[in-house]
């Protein structure tokens, strides 16, 4: 059970501090992701852990022993590194490259034994590149070359595996392949794997622990749920994101907000109430929020994706329990929100007996002389109430509801209405 201990590591280049007071522990079986913006010091950190760079301050301990006191071969027997960009001046075959991984275990005058060759082959098999053994390295694609480098690292029989952006330039299939291989190495073979990653979602899905690095300092550590919060990501990367949990993978995933959603948004004084449901309102709510409008929505049931979107943008919502028709309490709340809003938008949600009250609310809004925007064609496809819903939509039109054919058009109408105010 190998343990890695980084204590107060500091690295300087001239007078510039690349790493400052970096401390963390890791042990066998863990897959650790290192995330951070460009120039954060991630590669420097990897170099310090691999022993290539000696820190100006602090110590790296492997199983309690100082890394920098260990001989080159001993380090190589314990720690293997998968480089980001392998250089090849001379043309070796893939097999020859992987066999070089056996060097730490061989003495000077030895030739590779059959056992070494078998180990190299099984490493290649594990990485899925056994069929490339006799090919020249320069005939092999970048992604496969990366896998061969992983095979070489595995041939070293290390206890710690370090990877610098292993999924860079790989197609999606190979990216998944690599991450699943790393997971397997940790789980089944008890390796400690530390990988610098640039893809939040891969990191969140596969890593046990994450390290957020910025400006040479550790800004956050913990499980993906603990480390990847809106606040942390805003602080470390300077982006606004939505953090969601995916039902199928049960891991969180990050969605960056569009470019217009910066830290300082122009707060417009207009309040827009969106009557929606079944996912028809999510993108609209987001767009309105990005443009700085205050938003509210209703009536939505708590399992609706539109409800989740409303939560993300901080809109006030009139909620209802799932699978139940709209109760009068929820309806009253909806009317309240409509009263406070300046503009009402009705999306093309499926109309059933249970949510007819939403259209009633819209009509109330029209009666209050609030501008109502109707998205979509006149409800012929949406209506599952045998015509009642369609009638209500026509009522809305009669009362002066504006017709928009898309969400974008609706937004345009809103902004022109805003100008008038």
């Amino acid at each position, binding site marked *: 059970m190998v343990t890695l201990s980084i204590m107060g590591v500091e690295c300087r280049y001239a007078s510039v501090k690349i790493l400052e007071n970096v401390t963390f522990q890791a042990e066998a079986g863990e897959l650790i992701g290192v995330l951070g913006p460009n120039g954060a010091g991630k590669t420097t950190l990897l170099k310090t852990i691999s022993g290539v760079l000696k820190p100006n301050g602090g110590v790296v301990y492997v199983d309690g022993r100082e890394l920098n006191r260990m001989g080159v071969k001993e380090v*190589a027997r314990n720690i293997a590194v998968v480089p980001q960009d392998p250089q090849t*001046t001379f043309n070796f075959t893939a097999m020859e490259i992987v066999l070089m991984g056996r060097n730490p275990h*061989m003495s000077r005058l030895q030739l590779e034994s059959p056992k070494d060759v078998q180990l190299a082959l099984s490493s290649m098999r594990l990485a899925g590149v056994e069929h490339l053994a006799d090919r020249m390295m320069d005939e092999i694609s970048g992604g496969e070359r990366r896998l061969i480098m992983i095979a070489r690292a595995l041939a070293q029989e290390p206890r710690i595996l370090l990877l610098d952006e292993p999924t860079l330039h790989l197609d999606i299939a190979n990216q998944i392949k690599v991450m699943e291989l790393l997971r397997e190495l940790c789980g089944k073979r008890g390796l400690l794997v530390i990988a610098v990653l640039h893809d939040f979602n891969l990191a969140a899905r596969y890593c046990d622990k994450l390290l957020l690095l910025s400006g040479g300092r550790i800004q956050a550590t913990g499980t993906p749920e603990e480390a990847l919060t809106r606040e942390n990501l805003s602080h470390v990367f300077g982006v606004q994101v939505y953090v969601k949990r995916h039902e199928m993978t049960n891991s969180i995933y990050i969605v960056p907000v569009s470019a217009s959603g910066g830290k300082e948004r122009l707060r417009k004084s207009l309040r827009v109430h969106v009557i929606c449901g079944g996912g028809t309102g999510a993108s609209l709510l987001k767009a309105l929020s990005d443009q700085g409008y205050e938003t509210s929505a209703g009536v939505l049931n708590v399992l609706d994706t539109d409800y989740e979107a409303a939560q993300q943008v901080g809109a006030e919502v009139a909620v209802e329990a799932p699978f139940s028709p709209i109760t009068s309490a929820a309806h009253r709340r909806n009317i309240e929100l409509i009263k406070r809003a300046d503009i009402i938008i009705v999306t093309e949600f499926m109309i059933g007996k249970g949510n007819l009250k939403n259209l009633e609310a819209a009509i109330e809004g029209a009666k209050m002389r609030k501008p109502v925007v109707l998205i979509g064609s006149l409800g012929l496809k949406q209506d599952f109430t045998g015509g009642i819903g369609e009638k209500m939509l026509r009522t809305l039109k009669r009362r002066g509801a504006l017709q928009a054919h898309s969400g974008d058009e609706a937004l345009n109408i809103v902004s022109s209405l805003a100008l008038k105010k």
Partner: protein
Amino acid sequence: MPRRAVENWKRKFIILTFILILAMLISLNLGYAQIPVTKILGIMAERVAPFLNLRYSDASETEKSIVMDLRLPRILGGALIGLGLSTAGVVFQGVFRNPMADPYVIGVSSGAALGAALAIVLNIGFTVFGVNTLSVMAFLFSLTAVFIVFNLARTGPKVPVTTLLLSGLAVSIMFSAFISFLQLISGWELHRLVYWMMGGLSGIQWADLKSATPLIIGGVVGVYLYSRDLNIMTLSEEEAQHLGVNVERSKKILLALGSLITAASVSISGLIGFVGLIIPHLTRIMVGPDHRALTPASIMTGAIFLVSCDSLARFILAPIELPVGLVTSLTGAPFFLYLLRKRGKGYRM
């Protein structure tokens, strides 16, 4: 189990050895005095095993002297220098990760030339262990030049490879300036230096071989022992360290061995060019880049090449002898270009 070049090199090596022996016999046969091959073999057999009291040849004393004192040393010298320079070429191309590197790249040639120039101009005339002054001066000055180049490029315990190359260039230019100055102030011995710098095997004696052989063979054996390190170092220095190679130490040892071999060769033969640059590429085409096969193959190929070039040098304009360096360049270049084109999809170093 996939085939690897390194397991097949022994067969190629044996073939190459036979070719070398053939080349040497042909070379022994060439010359102003017509001595048939059987007589040559007889003369050598007699010298090698006198106790056997064989009387294969009825060679005259002159003939014996020609073979044993004139031809044999130069041919053995040719083989020795050929194998030395090609090994040095393999080392430098591997350490610098640069297919354009040759044994002279960190100052050996300019140092040796300066040493030779000084010896000629100052007309010093004593011998050290039977070796003439010129050789000793060339040897000492070439190692001094490397020493200067090395220390100029060093930053702490590390010797970065690009800095070494630049440093070598700078020192070579400086030394060339000194040599030009010497040539300027001493017009009369000029042609001797020029001829020496072109490289030739004619002056090689048994004493030269006795002093150069242990250095060259020792160096070559040392290089072979570091073959696997060389393989790994051609990737990149950082990767090599990750794979357990002590990069700085291996680099220093390999460069020292390469310089020693080159200095020893150059001191007895002058500056023979092209061998160190091209032979490694030729052998890489034959056996691949694994230094465990490349080094032995280069040794044999280099020896064959130089011995053959020397034969050509003596044969083409007989009885006038061309400098060997001229022949190596004139024959090597076109032959290599031909090989390059024949390999089709481009020779990846």
